[in-house]
Protein backbone atom coordinates (compact mmCIF):
# COMPACT_ATOMS: atom_id res chain seq x y z
CA UNK A 1 0.00 0.00 0.00
CA UNK A 2 2.26 2.74 -1.23
CA UNK A 3 0.77 6.04 -2.26
CA UNK A 4 2.80 8.99 -3.48
CA UNK A 5 1.56 12.29 -4.79
CA UNK A 6 3.48 14.20 -7.43
CA UNK A 7 2.44 17.66 -8.38
CA UNK A 8 3.33 17.95 -12.03
CA UNK A 9 3.62 21.32 -13.72
CA UNK A 10 0.34 21.43 -15.58
CA UNK A 11 -2.05 21.49 -12.58
CA UNK A 12 -2.09 17.72 -12.38
CA UNK A 13 -1.59 15.53 -9.37
CA UNK A 14 -0.03 12.25 -10.37
CA UNK A 15 -0.90 9.56 -7.84
CA UNK A 16 1.52 6.67 -7.79
CA UNK A 17 -0.06 3.57 -6.35
CA UNK A 18 2.11 0.60 -5.64
CA UNK A 19 2.51 -2.51 -3.51
CA UNK A 20 -0.13 -5.05 -2.52
CA UNK A 21 -3.53 -3.83 -1.43
CA UNK A 22 -5.28 -6.16 0.94
CA UNK A 23 -8.45 -5.42 2.84
CA UNK A 24 -6.96 -7.04 5.96
CA UNK A 25 -4.49 -4.17 6.20
CA UNK A 26 -7.31 -1.67 6.56
CA UNK A 27 -8.29 1.25 4.38
CA UNK A 28 -5.79 4.11 3.89
CA UNK A 29 -7.10 7.56 4.75
CA UNK A 30 -7.54 10.23 2.10
CA UNK A 31 -6.32 13.04 4.39
CA UNK A 32 -2.95 13.12 2.74
CA UNK A 33 -4.52 13.48 -0.69
CA UNK A 34 -6.92 16.17 0.50
CA UNK A 35 -4.00 18.11 1.92
CA UNK A 36 -2.11 17.90 -1.39
CA UNK A 37 -5.17 18.66 -3.48
CA UNK A 38 -6.18 21.51 -1.16
CA UNK A 39 -2.95 23.53 -1.56
CA UNK A 40 -3.10 26.36 -3.99
CA UNK A 41 -3.03 26.61 -6.90
CA UNK A 42 -5.87 24.04 -6.95
CA UNK A 43 -5.26 21.14 -9.32
CA UNK A 44 -7.38 20.72 -12.44
CA UNK A 45 -7.04 16.96 -12.77
CA UNK A 46 -5.62 13.87 -11.17
CA UNK A 47 -3.94 11.01 -12.97
CA UNK A 48 -2.69 7.63 -11.84
CA UNK A 49 0.45 5.64 -12.24
CA UNK A 50 -0.03 2.02 -11.22
CA UNK A 51 3.03 0.37 -12.74
CA UNK A 52 4.22 -0.68 -9.26
CA UNK A 53 0.80 -2.07 -8.21
CA UNK A 54 0.76 -5.71 -7.07
CA UNK A 55 -2.38 -7.53 -5.95
CA UNK A 56 -5.43 -5.46 -5.16
CA UNK A 57 -8.97 -5.89 -3.83
CA UNK A 58 -11.88 -3.79 -2.55
CA UNK A 59 -9.59 -1.69 -0.35
CA UNK A 60 -8.13 -0.06 -3.47
CA UNK A 61 -11.60 0.43 -4.93
CA UNK A 62 -12.90 2.01 -1.74
CA UNK A 63 -9.91 4.35 -1.61
CA UNK A 64 -10.27 5.34 -5.25
CA UNK A 65 -14.00 5.88 -5.10
CA UNK A 66 -13.47 8.18 -2.10
CA UNK A 67 -10.95 10.14 -4.18
CA UNK A 68 -13.38 10.23 -7.10
CA UNK A 69 -16.16 11.56 -4.87
CA UNK A 70 -13.86 14.20 -3.46
CA UNK A 71 -12.77 15.29 -6.94
CA UNK A 72 -16.34 15.19 -8.22
CA UNK A 73 -17.43 17.68 -5.55
CA UNK A 74 -14.60 20.08 -6.44
CA UNK A 75 -14.80 19.58 -10.20
CA UNK A 76 -11.34 18.12 -10.48
CA UNK A 77 -11.13 15.84 -13.50
CA UNK A 78 -10.18 12.21 -12.86
CA UNK A 79 -8.11 10.61 -15.60
CA UNK A 80 -8.71 6.89 -15.30
CA UNK A 81 -6.32 5.85 -18.06
CA UNK A 82 -3.55 5.08 -15.62
CA UNK A 83 -5.63 2.57 -13.66
CA UNK A 84 -5.66 -1.15 -14.39
CA UNK A 85 -8.59 -1.97 -16.65
CA UNK A 86 -10.51 -3.97 -14.03
CA UNK A 87 -10.26 -1.19 -11.46
CA UNK A 88 -11.41 1.45 -13.93
CA UNK A 89 -14.43 -0.64 -14.93
CA UNK A 90 -15.48 -1.34 -11.35
CA UNK A 91 -15.17 2.34 -10.40
CA UNK A 92 -17.33 3.20 -13.38
CA UNK A 93 -19.88 0.55 -12.35
CA UNK A 94 -20.05 1.93 -8.82
CA UNK A 95 -20.68 5.45 -10.08
CA UNK A 96 -23.10 4.41 -12.88
CA UNK A 97 -26.25 4.75 -10.78
CA UNK A 98 -26.28 7.97 -8.76
CA UNK A 99 -27.06 7.61 -5.07
CA UNK A 100 -30.78 7.84 -4.39
CA UNK A 101 -30.85 10.82 -2.09
CA UNK A 102 -34.14 10.24 -0.29
CA UNK A 103 -33.54 6.48 0.03
CA UNK A 104 -31.09 6.93 2.91
CA UNK A 105 -33.15 6.88 6.02
CA UNK A 106 -32.55 9.81 8.25
CA UNK A 107 -32.06 9.03 11.86
CA UNK A 108 -33.12 12.03 13.76
CA UNK A 109 -33.47 12.10 17.50
CA UNK A 110 -36.91 12.91 18.73
CA UNK A 111 -37.04 14.83 21.97
CA UNK A 112 -38.11 12.96 25.10
CA UNK A 113 -41.51 14.66 25.39
CA UNK A 114 -42.31 13.95 21.76
CA UNK A 115 -41.46 10.31 22.29
CA UNK A 116 -43.71 10.13 25.36
CA UNK A 117 -46.47 11.75 23.33
CA UNK A 118 -46.02 9.31 20.48
CA UNK A 119 -46.08 6.40 22.90
CA UNK A 120 -49.34 7.64 24.42
CA UNK A 121 -50.92 8.12 21.00
CA UNK A 122 -49.72 4.68 19.99
CA UNK A 123 -51.15 3.16 23.18
CA UNK A 124 -54.49 4.81 22.47
CA UNK A 125 -54.43 3.55 18.92
CA UNK A 126 -53.61 -0.01 19.90
CA UNK A 127 -56.34 0.10 22.55
CA UNK A 128 -58.76 1.11 19.81
CA UNK A 129 -57.57 -1.74 17.61
CA UNK A 130 -58.04 -4.15 20.49
CA UNK A 131 -61.60 -2.97 21.07
CA UNK A 132 -62.39 -3.14 17.36
CA UNK A 133 -61.05 -6.68 17.24
CA UNK A 134 -63.11 -7.67 20.27
CA UNK A 135 -66.18 -6.17 18.60
CA UNK A 136 -65.52 -8.09 15.40
CA UNK A 137 -65.06 -11.27 17.41
CA UNK A 138 -68.41 -10.63 19.11
CA UNK A 139 -70.13 -10.15 15.74
CA UNK A 140 -68.49 -13.30 14.49
CA UNK A 141 -69.74 -15.13 17.59
CA UNK A 142 -73.28 -13.99 16.94
CA UNK A 143 -72.98 -15.28 13.37
CA UNK A 144 -71.73 -18.55 14.83
CA UNK A 145 -74.73 -18.77 17.18
CA UNK A 146 -77.09 -18.20 14.25
CA UNK A 147 -75.22 -20.89 12.33
CA UNK A 148 -74.08 -18.44 9.68
CA UNK A 149 -70.38 -18.52 10.40
CA UNK A 150 -68.37 -20.35 7.77
CA UNK A 151 -65.67 -22.56 9.25
CA UNK A 152 -64.56 -26.15 9.06
CA UNK A 153 -65.79 -28.47 11.80
CA UNK A 154 -62.62 -30.54 11.43
CA UNK A 155 -60.51 -27.48 12.28
CA UNK A 156 -62.43 -26.97 15.51
CA UNK A 157 -61.89 -30.58 16.60
CA UNK A 158 -58.22 -30.38 15.76
CA UNK A 159 -57.83 -27.12 17.68
CA UNK A 160 -59.67 -28.56 20.67
CA UNK A 161 -57.29 -31.50 20.68
CA UNK A 162 -54.29 -29.19 20.38
CA UNK A 163 -55.27 -26.89 23.20
CA UNK A 164 -57.02 -29.52 25.32
CA UNK A 165 -55.65 -33.04 25.37
CA UNK A 166 -52.15 -32.10 24.28
CA UNK A 167 -51.82 -29.56 27.08
CA UNK A 168 -52.57 -32.12 29.81
CA UNK A 169 -48.95 -33.16 30.57
CA UNK A 170 -47.65 -29.62 31.11
CA UNK A 171 -50.74 -28.59 33.07
CA UNK A 172 -50.34 -31.69 35.28
CA UNK A 173 -46.75 -30.87 36.09
CA UNK A 174 -47.28 -27.18 36.75
CA UNK A 175 -50.39 -27.55 38.89
CA UNK A 176 -48.95 -30.45 40.89
CA UNK A 177 -45.92 -28.31 41.70
CA UNK A 178 -48.05 -25.28 42.53
CA UNK A 179 -50.04 -27.45 44.95
CA UNK A 180 -46.77 -28.63 46.51
CA UNK A 181 -45.45 -25.09 46.87
CA UNK A 182 -48.68 -23.80 48.42
CA UNK A 183 -48.62 -26.67 50.92
CA UNK A 184 -45.00 -25.97 51.85
CA UNK A 185 -45.59 -22.25 52.36
CA UNK A 186 -48.69 -22.93 54.45
CA UNK A 187 -47.11 -25.77 56.43
CA UNK A 188 -44.29 -23.64 57.78
CA UNK A 189 -46.74 -21.11 59.23
CA UNK A 190 -49.46 -23.51 60.35
CA UNK A 191 -47.00 -25.86 62.07
CA UNK A 192 -46.18 -23.10 64.54
CA UNK A 193 -49.78 -23.30 65.77
CA UNK A 194 -49.91 -27.07 65.51
CA UNK A 195 -52.59 -26.63 62.87
CA UNK A 196 -50.95 -28.61 60.05
CA UNK A 197 -54.23 -30.18 59.11
CA UNK A 198 -55.45 -26.85 57.75
CA UNK A 199 -52.90 -27.17 54.96
CA UNK A 200 -55.61 -29.22 53.26
CA UNK A 201 -58.07 -26.30 53.47
CA UNK A 202 -55.48 -23.83 52.31
CA UNK A 203 -54.40 -25.79 49.26
CA UNK A 204 -57.92 -26.82 48.34
CA UNK A 205 -59.41 -23.36 48.50
CA UNK A 206 -56.45 -21.61 46.89
CA UNK A 207 -56.38 -24.04 43.98
CA UNK A 208 -60.13 -24.10 43.42
CA UNK A 209 -60.75 -20.38 43.65
CA UNK A 210 -57.59 -18.93 42.19
CA UNK A 211 -54.43 -20.82 41.35
CA UNK A 212 -55.92 -23.55 39.19
CA UNK A 213 -57.45 -21.13 36.73
CA UNK A 214 -54.57 -18.68 36.80
CA UNK A 215 -51.77 -21.20 36.33
CA UNK A 216 -53.62 -23.03 33.58
CA UNK A 217 -54.31 -19.74 31.80
CA UNK A 218 -50.67 -18.68 32.01
CA UNK A 219 -49.49 -22.04 30.71
CA UNK A 220 -51.99 -21.77 27.86
CA UNK A 221 -50.94 -18.19 27.08
CA UNK A 222 -47.38 -19.38 26.55
CA UNK A 223 -48.33 -22.57 24.83
CA UNK A 224 -51.47 -21.98 22.81
CA UNK A 225 -51.82 -18.20 22.62
CA UNK A 226 -48.34 -17.87 21.15
CA UNK A 227 -49.08 -20.73 18.77
CA UNK A 228 -52.25 -18.96 17.56
CA UNK A 229 -50.32 -15.75 16.96
CA UNK A 230 -47.58 -17.58 15.08
CA UNK A 231 -50.04 -19.59 12.97
CA UNK A 232 -52.13 -16.60 11.95
CA UNK A 233 -49.01 -14.46 11.50
CA UNK A 234 -47.50 -17.01 9.14
CA UNK A 235 -50.76 -17.20 7.23
CA UNK A 236 -50.63 -13.41 6.93
CA UNK A 237 -47.06 -13.56 5.58
CA UNK A 238 -47.98 -16.33 3.17
CA UNK A 239 -51.01 -14.35 1.84
CA UNK A 240 -53.31 -17.15 2.99
CA UNK A 241 -55.50 -14.65 4.82
CA UNK A 242 -55.71 -12.50 1.67
CA UNK A 243 -56.76 -15.60 -0.22
CA UNK A 244 -59.61 -16.12 2.26
CA UNK A 245 -60.69 -12.49 2.06
CA UNK A 246 -60.79 -12.41 -1.73
CA UNK A 247 -62.89 -15.53 -1.63
CA UNK A 248 -65.38 -13.65 0.49
CA UNK A 249 -64.74 -15.81 3.56
CA UNK A 250 -64.31 -13.84 6.75
CA UNK A 251 -61.01 -14.73 8.43
CA UNK A 252 -62.76 -13.86 11.71
CA UNK A 253 -65.29 -16.65 11.18
CA UNK A 254 -62.96 -19.09 9.54
CA UNK A 255 -59.83 -18.75 11.66
CA UNK A 256 -60.41 -16.70 14.79
CA UNK A 257 -63.78 -18.00 15.98
CA UNK A 258 -62.80 -21.70 16.07
CA UNK A 259 -59.67 -20.81 18.02
CA UNK A 260 -61.56 -18.79 20.61
CA UNK A 261 -64.23 -21.48 20.91
CA UNK A 262 -61.68 -24.26 21.31
CA UNK A 263 -59.81 -22.45 24.05
CA UNK A 264 -62.95 -21.29 25.87
CA UNK A 265 -64.29 -24.83 25.89
CA UNK A 266 -61.04 -26.46 26.92
CA UNK A 267 -59.69 -24.04 29.51
CA UNK A 268 -62.37 -24.70 32.19
CA UNK A 269 -61.85 -28.46 31.77
CA UNK A 270 -58.11 -28.07 32.11
CA UNK A 271 -58.68 -25.80 35.09
CA UNK A 272 -60.80 -28.40 36.83
CA UNK A 273 -58.12 -30.98 36.17
CA UNK A 274 -55.47 -28.57 37.47
CA UNK A 275 -57.49 -28.12 40.67
CA UNK A 276 -57.35 -31.84 41.38
CA UNK A 277 -53.68 -32.09 40.50
CA UNK A 278 -52.93 -29.18 42.85
CA UNK A 279 -54.86 -30.80 45.68
CA UNK A 280 -52.94 -33.99 45.01
CA UNK A 281 -49.69 -32.03 45.21
CA UNK A 282 -50.78 -30.57 48.55
CA UNK A 283 -51.68 -34.06 49.68
CA UNK A 284 -48.20 -35.34 48.91
CA UNK A 285 -46.70 -32.72 51.22
CA UNK A 286 -49.36 -33.27 53.88
CA UNK A 287 -48.98 -37.01 53.94
CA UNK A 288 -45.26 -37.19 53.30
CA UNK A 289 -44.00 -34.35 55.47
CA UNK A 290 -46.68 -33.42 57.96
CA UNK A 291 -47.70 -36.97 58.91
CA UNK A 292 -51.35 -36.43 58.14
CA UNK A 293 -53.05 -39.66 57.12
CA UNK A 294 -54.38 -39.72 53.55
CA UNK A 295 -57.93 -40.34 54.74
CA UNK A 296 -57.73 -37.46 57.19
CA UNK A 297 -56.35 -35.14 54.49
CA UNK A 298 -59.10 -36.22 52.10
CA UNK A 299 -61.88 -35.57 54.62
CA UNK A 300 -60.44 -32.21 55.59
CA UNK A 301 -60.27 -31.14 51.93
CA UNK A 302 -63.81 -32.36 51.32
CA UNK A 303 -65.10 -30.43 54.31
CA UNK A 304 -63.34 -27.24 53.18
CA UNK A 305 -64.54 -27.35 49.60
CA UNK A 306 -68.18 -27.05 48.76
CA UNK A 307 -69.07 -27.24 45.08
CA UNK A 308 -69.66 -23.50 45.18
CA UNK A 309 -65.94 -22.99 45.82
CA UNK A 310 -65.19 -24.22 42.31
CA UNK A 311 -67.49 -21.71 40.67
CA UNK A 312 -65.21 -18.61 40.85
CA UNK A 313 -62.33 -20.62 39.40
CA UNK A 314 -64.43 -21.92 36.54
CA UNK A 315 -65.83 -18.50 35.68
CA UNK A 316 -62.30 -17.14 35.69
CA UNK A 317 -61.14 -19.98 33.46
CA UNK A 318 -63.78 -19.06 30.87
CA UNK A 319 -62.79 -15.39 30.97
CA UNK A 320 -59.08 -16.23 30.78
CA UNK A 321 -59.80 -18.50 27.84
CA UNK A 322 -61.36 -15.59 25.96
CA UNK A 323 -58.44 -13.34 26.92
CA UNK A 324 -55.72 -15.75 25.83
CA UNK A 325 -57.42 -16.66 22.56
CA UNK A 326 -58.28 -13.04 21.74
CA UNK A 327 -54.77 -11.76 22.35
CA UNK A 328 -53.20 -14.60 20.39
CA UNK A 329 -55.51 -14.09 17.42
CA UNK A 330 -55.31 -10.28 17.60
CA UNK A 331 -51.52 -10.26 17.44
CA UNK A 332 -51.55 -12.87 14.70
CA UNK A 333 -53.99 -10.91 12.55
CA UNK A 334 -52.04 -7.68 13.10
CA UNK A 335 -48.82 -9.35 11.98
CA UNK A 336 -46.83 -7.61 9.23
CA UNK A 337 -45.42 -9.43 6.24
CA UNK A 338 -42.04 -10.61 7.41
CA UNK A 339 -40.51 -13.48 9.33
CA UNK A 340 -39.40 -11.27 12.22
CA UNK A 341 -42.93 -9.88 12.51
CA UNK A 342 -44.19 -13.39 13.24
CA UNK A 343 -41.78 -13.63 16.16
CA UNK A 344 -42.88 -10.25 17.46
CA UNK A 345 -46.51 -11.30 17.15
CA UNK A 346 -45.90 -14.43 19.22
CA UNK A 347 -44.00 -12.51 21.91
CA UNK A 348 -46.50 -9.71 22.09
CA UNK A 349 -49.44 -12.15 22.25
CA UNK A 350 -47.97 -13.72 25.41
CA UNK A 351 -47.39 -10.33 27.01
CA UNK A 352 -50.89 -9.12 26.16
CA UNK A 353 -52.43 -12.37 27.38
CA UNK A 354 -50.62 -12.41 30.72
CA UNK A 355 -51.37 -8.74 31.41
CA UNK A 356 -55.04 -9.22 30.61
CA UNK A 357 -55.21 -12.40 32.70
CA UNK A 358 -53.86 -10.64 35.78
CA UNK A 359 -55.98 -7.52 35.31
CA UNK A 360 -59.20 -9.43 34.73
CA UNK A 361 -58.36 -11.72 37.65
CA UNK A 362 -58.07 -8.72 39.96
CA UNK A 363 -61.37 -7.30 38.73
CA UNK A 364 -63.17 -10.64 39.02
CA UNK A 365 -61.84 -11.30 42.52
CA UNK A 366 -63.23 -7.97 43.71
CA UNK A 367 -66.58 -8.65 42.02
CA UNK A 368 -66.83 -12.15 43.56
CA UNK A 369 -66.01 -10.73 46.94
CA UNK A 370 -68.76 -8.09 46.60
CA UNK A 371 -71.45 -10.53 45.49
CA UNK A 372 -70.24 -13.10 47.97
CA UNK A 373 -69.33 -16.19 46.01
Amino acid at each position, binding site marked *: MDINFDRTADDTILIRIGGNWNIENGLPSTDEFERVAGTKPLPARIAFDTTQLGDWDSSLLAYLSKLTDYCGQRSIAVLRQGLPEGVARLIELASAVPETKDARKERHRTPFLARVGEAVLYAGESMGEMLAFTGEAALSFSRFIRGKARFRRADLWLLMEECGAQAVPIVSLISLLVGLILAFVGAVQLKMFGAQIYVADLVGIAMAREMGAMMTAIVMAGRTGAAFAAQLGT*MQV*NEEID*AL*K*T*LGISPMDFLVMPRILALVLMLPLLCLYANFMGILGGGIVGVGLLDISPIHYYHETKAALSLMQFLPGLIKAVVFGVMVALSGCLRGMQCKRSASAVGEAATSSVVTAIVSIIVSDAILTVIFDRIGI
Partner: protein
Amino acid sequence: MDRFDKKESCIEVQDLTMAYGSFVIQRDLSFTVNRGDIFIIMGGSGCGKSTLLRNMVGLQAPAKGKVLYNGASFWDSGPEERKNIMRRFGILYQSGALWSSMTLAENVALPLSEYTRLSHAEIRELVSLKLALVGLAGFEEFYPSEISGGMCKRAGIARAMALDPDILFFDEPSAGLDPISARRLDELIVELRDSLGTTVVVVTHELASIFAIGDNSVFLDAESRTMIAVGDPKKLIEESRDPKIRNFLTRGNP
Protein backbone atom coordinates in the same frame (compact mmCIF):
# COMPACT_ATOMS: atom_id res chain seq x y z
CA MET B 1 -61.31 -15.95 -32.37
CA ASP B 2 -64.40 -13.92 -33.31
CA ARG B 3 -65.45 -13.23 -29.80
CA PHE B 4 -62.22 -11.38 -29.05
CA ASP B 5 -62.64 -9.01 -31.97
CA LYS B 6 -65.30 -6.87 -30.52
CA LYS B 7 -63.51 -5.16 -27.68
CA GLU B 8 -65.76 -5.07 -24.70
CA SER B 9 -64.37 -3.53 -21.56
CA CYS B 10 -64.28 -5.75 -18.53
CA ILE B 11 -62.27 -3.82 -15.97
CA GLU B 12 -61.81 -0.08 -16.03
CA VAL B 13 -59.38 1.71 -13.76
CA GLN B 14 -60.04 5.43 -13.50
CA ASP B 15 -57.68 8.01 -12.00
CA LEU B 16 -56.47 5.55 -9.44
CA THR B 17 -54.05 6.82 -6.81
CA MET B 18 -52.51 4.34 -4.40
CA ALA B 19 -50.83 5.32 -1.19
CA TYR B 20 -49.68 3.96 2.14
CA GLY B 21 -50.61 6.79 4.46
CA SER B 22 -49.17 9.93 2.92
CA PHE B 23 -46.62 8.03 0.80
CA VAL B 24 -47.98 7.91 -2.75
CA ILE B 25 -46.94 4.81 -4.67
CA GLN B 26 -48.63 5.46 -8.00
CA ARG B 27 -50.98 8.21 -9.10
CA ASP B 28 -53.41 8.91 -11.94
CA LEU B 29 -53.64 5.40 -13.31
CA SER B 30 -56.32 4.99 -15.98
CA PHE B 31 -56.60 2.00 -18.27
CA THR B 32 -59.11 -0.50 -19.55
CA VAL B 33 -58.86 -4.27 -19.63
CA ASN B 34 -60.96 -5.79 -22.40
CA ARG B 35 -62.82 -9.04 -22.11
CA GLY B 36 -60.70 -11.99 -23.21
CA ASP B 37 -57.45 -10.05 -23.04
CA ILE B 38 -54.30 -11.12 -21.31
CA PHE B 39 -53.42 -7.85 -19.69
CA ILE B 40 -49.92 -7.35 -18.29
CA ILE B 41 -49.09 -5.00 -15.45
CA MET B 42 -45.36 -4.45 -15.80
CA GLY B 43 -42.63 -2.25 -14.40
CA GLY B 44 -39.45 -2.45 -12.40
CA SER B 45 -39.26 -3.95 -8.91
CA GLY B 46 -40.94 -1.87 -6.25
CA CYS B 47 -42.96 0.29 -8.63
CA GLY B 48 -46.27 -0.80 -7.11
CA LYS B 49 -47.41 -3.55 -9.48
CA SER B 50 -48.56 -5.87 -6.72
CA THR B 51 -50.15 -2.97 -4.84
CA LEU B 52 -52.15 -2.15 -7.97
CA LEU B 53 -53.32 -5.75 -8.01
CA ARG B 54 -54.30 -5.52 -4.32
CA ASN B 55 -56.31 -2.39 -5.14
CA MET B 56 -58.03 -4.10 -8.05
CA VAL B 57 -59.03 -7.28 -6.20
CA GLY B 58 -60.35 -5.53 -3.13
CA LEU B 59 -57.60 -6.12 -0.57
CA GLN B 60 -56.60 -2.49 -0.23
CA ALA B 61 -58.75 0.56 -0.82
CA PRO B 62 -57.32 3.12 -3.26
CA ALA B 63 -56.54 6.60 -1.94
CA LYS B 64 -58.46 8.07 -4.87
CA GLY B 65 -60.13 6.89 -8.06
CA LYS B 66 -62.27 3.98 -9.11
CA VAL B 67 -62.07 0.41 -10.25
CA LEU B 68 -65.07 -0.55 -12.38
CA TYR B 69 -66.13 -4.10 -13.14
CA ASN B 70 -68.62 -4.14 -16.03
CA GLY B 71 -69.43 -0.57 -15.15
CA ALA B 72 -69.99 -1.14 -11.43
CA SER B 73 -67.58 0.66 -9.15
CA PHE B 74 -66.04 -1.86 -6.78
CA TRP B 75 -65.08 0.42 -3.92
CA ASP B 76 -68.40 2.33 -3.97
CA SER B 77 -70.45 -0.86 -3.65
CA GLY B 78 -71.83 -2.34 -0.46
CA PRO B 79 -70.36 -5.48 1.09
CA GLU B 80 -72.86 -7.81 -0.57
CA GLU B 81 -72.28 -6.41 -4.05
CA ARG B 82 -68.54 -6.52 -3.48
CA LYS B 83 -68.80 -10.16 -2.54
CA ASN B 84 -70.73 -10.79 -5.75
CA ILE B 85 -68.07 -9.09 -7.82
CA MET B 86 -65.29 -10.91 -5.98
CA ARG B 87 -67.00 -14.23 -6.51
CA ARG B 88 -66.16 -13.88 -10.19
CA PHE B 89 -62.42 -13.49 -9.52
CA GLY B 90 -59.78 -16.11 -9.32
CA ILE B 91 -56.47 -15.02 -7.87
CA LEU B 92 -53.10 -16.70 -7.91
CA TYR B 93 -50.93 -15.18 -5.22
CA GLN B 94 -47.19 -14.78 -5.52
CA SER B 95 -46.37 -17.69 -3.23
CA GLY B 96 -49.43 -19.75 -4.15
CA ALA B 97 -50.97 -18.92 -0.75
CA LEU B 98 -52.47 -22.37 -0.37
CA TRP B 99 -54.01 -22.85 3.05
CA SER B 100 -51.30 -24.83 4.72
CA SER B 101 -53.53 -26.75 7.11
CA MET B 102 -55.55 -28.25 4.25
CA THR B 103 -54.75 -30.78 1.56
CA LEU B 104 -54.71 -29.72 -2.09
CA ALA B 105 -58.16 -31.24 -2.57
CA GLU B 106 -59.55 -29.32 0.40
CA ASN B 107 -57.95 -26.13 -0.85
CA VAL B 108 -59.68 -26.40 -4.21
CA ALA B 109 -62.90 -27.62 -2.61
CA LEU B 110 -63.33 -24.69 -0.21
CA PRO B 111 -64.47 -22.12 -2.82
CA LEU B 112 -66.80 -24.71 -4.30
CA SER B 113 -68.44 -25.59 -1.00
CA GLU B 114 -68.64 -21.90 -0.10
CA TYR B 115 -70.45 -20.77 -3.23
CA THR B 116 -72.24 -23.81 -4.67
CA ARG B 117 -74.75 -26.35 -3.43
CA LEU B 118 -72.91 -29.31 -4.89
CA SER B 119 -72.74 -32.56 -2.96
CA HIS B 120 -69.49 -33.88 -1.55
CA ALA B 121 -69.15 -36.41 -4.34
CA GLU B 122 -69.69 -33.79 -7.02
CA ILE B 123 -67.16 -31.48 -5.41
CA ARG B 124 -64.63 -34.32 -5.27
CA GLU B 125 -65.09 -34.91 -8.97
CA LEU B 126 -64.69 -31.24 -9.84
CA VAL B 127 -61.62 -30.97 -7.62
CA SER B 128 -59.97 -33.91 -9.35
CA LEU B 129 -60.76 -32.36 -12.71
CA LYS B 130 -59.26 -28.99 -11.78
CA LEU B 131 -56.14 -30.59 -10.35
CA ALA B 132 -55.80 -32.73 -13.48
CA LEU B 133 -56.06 -29.60 -15.64
CA VAL B 134 -52.98 -28.14 -13.98
CA GLY B 135 -51.14 -31.46 -14.13
CA LEU B 136 -51.55 -32.45 -10.50
CA ALA B 137 -53.81 -35.48 -10.82
CA GLY B 138 -53.18 -37.85 -7.95
CA PHE B 139 -51.92 -35.18 -5.55
CA GLU B 140 -55.31 -34.62 -3.91
CA GLU B 141 -54.29 -35.74 -0.45
CA PHE B 142 -50.94 -33.94 -0.32
CA TYR B 143 -50.38 -30.96 1.94
CA PRO B 144 -48.83 -27.79 0.44
CA SER B 145 -45.66 -28.33 2.47
CA GLU B 146 -45.15 -31.72 0.83
CA ILE B 147 -44.95 -30.49 -2.77
CA SER B 148 -42.55 -28.22 -4.67
CA GLY B 149 -42.94 -24.48 -5.21
CA GLY B 150 -43.93 -24.91 -8.84
CA MET B 151 -46.56 -27.48 -7.88
CA CYS B 152 -47.90 -25.09 -5.22
CA LYS B 153 -48.35 -22.45 -7.89
CA ARG B 154 -50.19 -24.84 -10.16
CA ALA B 155 -52.38 -25.95 -7.28
CA GLY B 156 -52.99 -22.25 -6.62
CA ILE B 157 -54.22 -21.92 -10.21
CA ALA B 158 -56.50 -24.91 -9.74
CA ARG B 159 -57.97 -23.17 -6.69
CA ALA B 160 -58.27 -19.87 -8.55
CA MET B 161 -60.14 -21.67 -11.35
CA ALA B 162 -62.40 -23.59 -9.01
CA LEU B 163 -65.44 -21.40 -9.59
CA ASP B 164 -64.81 -20.88 -13.34
CA PRO B 165 -64.08 -17.19 -12.79
CA ASP B 166 -64.55 -14.53 -15.47
CA ILE B 167 -61.33 -12.84 -14.48
CA LEU B 168 -58.10 -14.46 -13.36
CA PHE B 169 -55.44 -12.41 -11.60
CA PHE B 170 -51.87 -13.66 -11.47
CA ASP B 171 -49.31 -12.07 -9.16
CA GLU B 172 -45.82 -12.81 -10.52
CA PRO B 173 -46.75 -16.27 -11.81
CA SER B 174 -43.27 -17.21 -12.99
CA ALA B 175 -41.31 -15.87 -9.99
CA GLY B 176 -39.18 -18.65 -8.55
CA LEU B 177 -39.87 -21.13 -11.34
CA ASP B 178 -37.33 -22.66 -13.70
CA PRO B 179 -37.61 -21.50 -17.33
CA ILE B 180 -39.41 -24.62 -18.51
CA SER B 181 -42.02 -24.59 -15.74
CA ALA B 182 -42.45 -20.87 -16.33
CA ARG B 183 -43.14 -21.51 -20.02
CA ARG B 184 -45.61 -24.29 -19.22
CA LEU B 185 -47.39 -21.88 -16.91
CA ASP B 186 -47.57 -19.29 -19.69
CA GLU B 187 -49.01 -21.88 -22.03
CA LEU B 188 -51.55 -22.81 -19.39
CA ILE B 189 -52.59 -19.18 -19.02
CA VAL B 190 -53.08 -18.77 -22.78
CA GLU B 191 -54.93 -22.09 -22.92
CA LEU B 192 -57.31 -20.98 -20.17
CA ARG B 193 -58.04 -17.75 -21.99
CA ASP B 194 -58.55 -19.43 -25.35
CA SER B 195 -60.71 -22.27 -24.12
CA LEU B 196 -62.73 -20.59 -21.37
CA GLY B 197 -62.66 -17.00 -22.61
CA THR B 198 -61.34 -15.86 -19.23
CA THR B 199 -59.96 -12.36 -18.93
CA VAL B 200 -56.48 -12.54 -17.44
CA VAL B 201 -54.56 -9.86 -15.57
CA VAL B 202 -50.90 -10.71 -14.96
CA VAL B 203 -48.44 -8.82 -12.81
CA THR B 204 -44.97 -9.68 -14.03
CA HIS B 205 -41.58 -8.41 -15.07
CA GLU B 206 -40.52 -11.55 -16.93
CA LEU B 207 -39.86 -10.34 -20.48
CA ALA B 208 -40.30 -13.80 -21.96
CA SER B 209 -43.82 -14.06 -20.53
CA ILE B 210 -44.70 -10.50 -21.40
CA PHE B 211 -44.06 -11.05 -25.09
CA ALA B 212 -45.34 -14.61 -25.16
CA ILE B 213 -48.76 -14.00 -23.67
CA GLY B 214 -49.52 -10.28 -23.42
CA ASP B 215 -52.22 -8.68 -25.60
CA ASN B 216 -52.27 -5.41 -23.77
CA SER B 217 -50.30 -3.89 -20.96
CA VAL B 218 -49.69 -0.96 -18.70
CA PHE B 219 -46.20 0.14 -17.73
CA LEU B 220 -45.72 1.60 -14.26
CA ASP B 221 -42.72 3.78 -13.62
CA ALA B 222 -41.25 3.94 -10.13
CA GLU B 223 -39.51 7.30 -10.61
CA SER B 224 -42.39 9.42 -11.89
CA ARG B 225 -44.84 7.28 -9.84
CA THR B 226 -47.37 6.92 -12.61
CA MET B 227 -48.00 4.90 -15.75
CA ILE B 228 -45.98 5.90 -18.78
CA ALA B 229 -47.33 3.57 -21.46
CA VAL B 230 -50.34 1.44 -22.37
CA GLY B 231 -50.64 -1.01 -25.22
CA ASP B 232 -49.65 -4.31 -26.72
CA PRO B 233 -46.11 -5.02 -25.47
CA LYS B 234 -45.07 -6.35 -28.91
CA LYS B 235 -46.00 -3.00 -30.40
CA LEU B 236 -44.55 -1.02 -27.52
CA ILE B 237 -41.10 -2.43 -28.15
CA GLU B 238 -41.29 -1.43 -31.81
CA GLU B 239 -42.97 1.91 -31.50
CA SER B 240 -42.21 3.40 -28.12
CA ARG B 241 -39.56 6.09 -28.08
CA ASP B 242 -39.48 6.40 -24.32
CA PRO B 243 -35.99 5.27 -23.25
CA LYS B 244 -37.35 3.83 -19.97
CA ILE B 245 -39.75 1.52 -21.77
CA ARG B 246 -37.21 0.56 -24.42
CA ASN B 247 -34.64 -0.15 -21.73
CA PHE B 248 -37.06 -2.34 -19.81
CA LEU B 249 -38.36 -4.29 -22.79
CA THR B 250 -34.92 -4.89 -24.24
CA ARG B 251 -33.14 -5.60 -20.94
CA GLY B 252 -31.13 -2.43 -21.43
CA ASN B 253 -29.60 -3.31 -24.84
CA PRO B 254 -31.66 -1.31 -27.32
